[in-house]
């Protein structure tokens, strides 16, 4: 295949919409006083910075930085730090996604704050239909849920991502960058300014190797020889190259594909020593992961448990271990998953350490449609049916009356490992006792 002269634009317009600094923006909807001030949101247990307002970025707070190392900067710039409020973010994300779903029957939810939409019009619409829809999206989301978003539009997912990045980094686009109606040279000029490692699907390691070949920018990659890229880097990067040329290779998946893995892991609020306490935490993590699994109508075939001490406490003895166990058959039954996890924990636990963190990973995830009976197993169809009913009931009760209303016994009741979330905002949209107040004074 020779180099196509320009980016093919006769395709349908794909939009990538994402919220700017999503967690911080969610907080600001209910705290207008945080507008124009440096704000960060911290990860679970108030560990690292996971979301930064533009002001916090400008102040020099690095993404992912441990917050306790930012004390000087925080004081100097009067930075406001908030604990993660996932109940709020999840609800705001649901609102955001459902509003966007109105624009297209074809939506792929890509993460908590971004999704692809097939706008249902040509990528090069002479009347600017795609651009118009993009502007409407920005306006609607800002207006109805209060979130600032950016929209990138192009004929492929890769170009939509690239356009989104341009819109995000350059305020003059006012939140919407549509590559469709641009003349070839203008599009190429934009691609020439984009470093190759900013392209979706080009990792850091690929970028280094590409640089060695003189491929520095998105434009360089677009013009590179497809066969050569495929031979050196494999089919994934070759596909990226084709997508940069405006030829779609990656389809929109209407429903987000079941994730390859489900991870449930947190740092303990306080160091744990005894196995019983750690077991309670692990059981709670499995319970949460299993709920997620069932929401995806999936089953897990493997469960991994890991456990570690605090590597930042250098004067303490360090230990870390993990074990993966295979289940006799893929399951979504919390009790079976707990059985597997607790067994694994017993085998990896060593007395005499101060443990800092544990977690579980569900792997080998399959969708519910296929049901493989075990070759050797005690399981009958009847038992499976009963288990399904029990899990649905437990999930239903917990959804109706709040997480943890019905618990599996191993979870424990006082949970000394509970998270630190010192600066968490109220759950404005999920608890009646937490709703915002307005003064009538």
């Amino acid at each position: 295949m020779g180099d196509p002269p320009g980016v093919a634009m006769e395709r349908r317009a794909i939009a990538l919409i994402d919220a700017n600094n999503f967690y911080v923006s969610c907080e600001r909807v209910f705290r207008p006083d945080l507008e124009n001030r440096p704000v960060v949101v911290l990860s679970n247990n108030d560990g690292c910075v996971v979301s930064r307002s533009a002001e916090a970025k400008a102040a020099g707070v690095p993404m992912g930085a441990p917050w306790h190392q930012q004390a000087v900067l925080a004081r100097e710039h009067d930075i406001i730090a908030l604990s993660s409020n996932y109940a709020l973010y999840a609800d705001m994300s649901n609102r955001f996604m459902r509003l966007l779903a109105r624009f297209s029957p074809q939506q792929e939810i890509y993460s908590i704050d971004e999704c692809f939409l097939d706008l249902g019009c040509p990528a090069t619409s002479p009347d600017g239909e795609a651009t118009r829809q993009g502007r409407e999206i920005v306006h609607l989301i800002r207006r109805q849920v209060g979130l600032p978003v950016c929209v990138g539009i192009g004929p492929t997912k890769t170009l939509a991502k690239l356009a989104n990045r341009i819109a995000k980094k350059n305020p003059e686009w006012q939140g919407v960058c549509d590559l469709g109606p641009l003349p070839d040279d203008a599009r190429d000029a934009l691609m020439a300014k984009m470093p190759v490692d900013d392209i979706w699907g080009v990792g850091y390691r690929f970028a280094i190797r590409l640089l060695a070949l003189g491929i520095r920018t998105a434009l360089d990659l677009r013009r590179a020889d497809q066969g050569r890229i495929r031979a050196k880097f494999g089919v994934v990067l070759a596909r990226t190259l084709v997508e940069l040329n405006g030829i779609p290779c990656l389809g929109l998946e209407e429903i987000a594909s079941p994730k390859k893995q489900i991870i449930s892991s947190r740092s303990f609020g306080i160091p744990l020593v005894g196995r019983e306490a750690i077991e309670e935490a692990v059981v709670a993590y499995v319970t949460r992961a299993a709920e997620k699994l069932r929401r995806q109508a999936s089953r897990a075939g493997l469960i991994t448990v890991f456990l570690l001490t605090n590597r930042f406490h250098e004067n303490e003895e360090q230990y870390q271990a993990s074990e993966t166990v295979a289940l006799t058959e893929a399951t979504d039954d919390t009790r079976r998953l707990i059985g597997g996890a607790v067994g694994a924990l017993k085998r990896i636990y060593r007395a005499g350490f101060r443990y800092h963190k544990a977690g579980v990973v569900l792997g080998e995830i399959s969708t519910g449609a296929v049901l493989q009976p075990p070759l050797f197993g005690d399981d009958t169809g009847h038992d499976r049916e009963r288990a399904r009913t029990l899990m649905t009931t437990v999930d239903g009760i917990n959804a109706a009356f709040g997480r943890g209303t019905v618990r599996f016994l191993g979870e424990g009741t006082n949970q000394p490992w509970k998270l630190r979330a010192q600066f968490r905002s109220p759950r404005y949209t999920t608890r009646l006792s937490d709703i915002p107040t307005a003064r009538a004074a």
Partner: protein
Amino acid sequence: MGSELKWVGGPWASGETPAAGGLVARPVPAGFPSPADDYVESRISLDEHLIRHREATFFVRVTGDSMSGVGILDGDLLVVDRALTPVDGSVVIAVTGDGFTVKQLYRRPGGGAVLKAAHPGYADIEIGPDGELRIWGVVRWAIHRVWPWNDER
């Protein structure tokens, strides 16, 4: 068509457990279409009645009595819709200084607006033609607890 699922009352067959409300799901042979199928009535839902734009609706608690003239009292629960465009006289949640204020919005003919309290004891807020006014949402309903007055739920 096979069989369809329908809610039926009556005595429990052996092995069945009554579900909440004393009804049990039981397959009913098709071929006897019920007239009710075409005119389904469901129980009144306050969510459906009070919420027009589901994704844009938020609940807000009132503190203070400056809006008593329009029937909004201290402690009331407001149903706030961010999808609505306020008109003259709309009760709105406005952003003022450090937080939210509930007031009645009127536009000034020459530009600008005024946020009016609905109580003689409170002053209005004037916004000049060049002033900035942020409307957070439009109040559609005020839910007022009648009794018991200080129950949390």
